[in-house]
């Protein structure tokens, strides 16, 4: 059996003859290249700058995972899932419980991803689907209810005291040239990127991924060519929940503690990143998340009056507001044109 046939049997589609399109316009690409050049030159000139860039990418990749989860749900259900941060926090507590029971960090990690996936599917089927036909507002309110429900359940089971998990990547530090990088940051970047790549491969090259994209794009047409759209949307929630769990599990090692409020600021950053990327664009969410992480980190060092760490959240809000005012479709989104 050839590799090709093997892929076919696994339901993986042909890898050849594809174009990768990001949906980005020329000015946006120019902006990205300029940003990358700026970071490269800055890093070569100053080791502090390089260190801040690396840890910024690490933080940004956490924002990117959660932003991507928001985008997945937005594409499937056309609402912003306000419970996304709390879903991530709740699943991280589940991972914590596994480590308390004696599982290693990574065993807990993968067990939690599976649980998050199933929970995401269940949430869509049990509480989102019944109200989805009524109105967008009804779904938004349900996600807010879900947010406070998860908060309440976590406080009830685990209490509000901070909890500690084993460090997944150890505490060692690398020196490259004059630049110091922590293994935690490098691990965070690697895990986020691997997750995003696996998800991208899934959506581009599997039958199920193709059917899920079809369901999000044109539900009626997808139904009539035989796609079980409701089931596909539920799977979309499952993937988003698992992705959120990754962001929660990567937030914990960066903050060294687990607390019920830990994902609340991350959700705001993820919102800002998702909107900056164009809400419908997975590529946009990932790039914007990383860019926002680096930007906030550099601002904390070189920001003059804006250096204060208390200003991180307001700055993220300012980005959100600016995008909505200047370019509501985001960097990678298409202007919404509906033909009637």
């Amino acid at each position: 059996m050839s590799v090709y046939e093997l892929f076919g049997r696994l339901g993986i589609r042909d890898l050849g003859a594809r174009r990768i399109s990001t949906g980005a316009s020329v000015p946006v690409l120019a902006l990205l290249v300029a940003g990358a050049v700026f970071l490269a030159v800055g890093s070569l000139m100053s080791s502090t700058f390089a260190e801040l860039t690396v840890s910024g990418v690490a933080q940004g990749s956490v924002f990117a995972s959660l932003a991507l989860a928001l985008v997945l749900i937005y594409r499937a259900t056309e609402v912003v899932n306000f419970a996304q941060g709390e879903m991530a926090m709740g699943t991280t507590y589940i991972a914590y419980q596994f480590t308390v029971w004696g599982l290693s960090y990574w065993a807990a990690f993968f067990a939690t991803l599976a649980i998050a996936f199933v929970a995401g599917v269940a949430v869509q089927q049990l509480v989102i689907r019944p109200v989805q036909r009524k109105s967008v507002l009804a779904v938004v309110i349900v996600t807010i209810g879900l947010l406070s429900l998860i908060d309440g359940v976590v406080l009830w089971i685990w209490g509000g005291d901070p909890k500690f998990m084993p460090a997944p990547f150890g505490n060692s530090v690398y020196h490259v040239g004059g630049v110091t990088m922590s293994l935690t940051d490098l691990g965070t970047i690697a895990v986020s990127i691997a997750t995003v790549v696996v998800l991208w491969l899934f959506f581009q090259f599997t039958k199920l991924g193709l059917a899920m994209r079809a369901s999000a794009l044109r539900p009626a047409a997808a139904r009539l060519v035989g796609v079980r759209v409701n089931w596909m949307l539920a799977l979309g929630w499952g993937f988003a929940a698992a992705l959120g769990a990754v962001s929660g599990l990567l937030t914990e090692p960066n903050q060294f503690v687990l607390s019920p409020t830990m994902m609340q600021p991350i959700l705001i950053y993820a919102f800002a990143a998702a909107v900056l990327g164009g809400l419908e664009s997975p590529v946009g969410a990932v790039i914007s998340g990383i860019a926002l992480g680096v930007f906030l980190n550099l601002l904390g060092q070189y920001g003059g009056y804006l250096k204060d760490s208390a200003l991180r959240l307001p700055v993220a809000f300012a980005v959100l507001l600016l995008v909505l005012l200047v370019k509501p479709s985001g960097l990678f989104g298409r202007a919404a044109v509906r033909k009637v």
Partner: protein
Amino acid sequence: MSLLSVRNVHLRFGGITALEDVSFDVEEGTTAGLIGPNGAGKTTIFNVITRLYRLDEGDVLVDGSSLLRTPPSRVIRHGVARTFQNVELFPTMTVLENVLVGAHTDSRFERERSARRRATEALELIGIDELASRPAAGLPFGTLKRIELARALVSKPRLLLLDEPAGGLNHREVEELAVLLGRLRDQLKMTVLLVEHHMGLVMKISDHVHVLNFGRMIANGPPQEIQRNPEVIEAYLGGELDESAA
């Protein structure tokens, strides 16, 4: 027995009656035209047959079995495929991927290579296989209509519902479409129900024509007969015009 049988269908949206006691049959292996002025309910009938709308009374039978308990995603398993008036393609996918979505649902366990081959064959049949790796978004409207036709054909339907396939096509493209529809009937033995405003096309290729006006069937018969039917002429031209002409 007829392949498609629409029986005494009633459909209301709130206080508005969209379809009132609509009945008609389409015989296997024939091409039937469904015509009527704008707003007569032609697309509504397609949506009823494909289960996007739930009808209030009546029944829809395909090959003798009722579709009323079939969810929209299983209608295709009864051999019914359709196209849409305003084109419902997946814009960010390539042309081939659009057709593949239709091919995959035929059998979950079919190998990818064979699904791809069928999708490519469908594109060849329509004559657009050279566009396979292009994204669907941005192609001309006439081409999008053909991609949609290929997506419907890839599942090898017994009954094909076409919603204004000639809409937005130029004169030469309409001629090509007529030839293609003839081939579907004569070579692939496909049964076609066609909603179309292009009267020349409808009259040329239909074996039978059904006329709908304000949600009711007002006539049906062979094309030559329909063209001379006074009620049909009135529905299309309006009563006043006829009287002033007389």
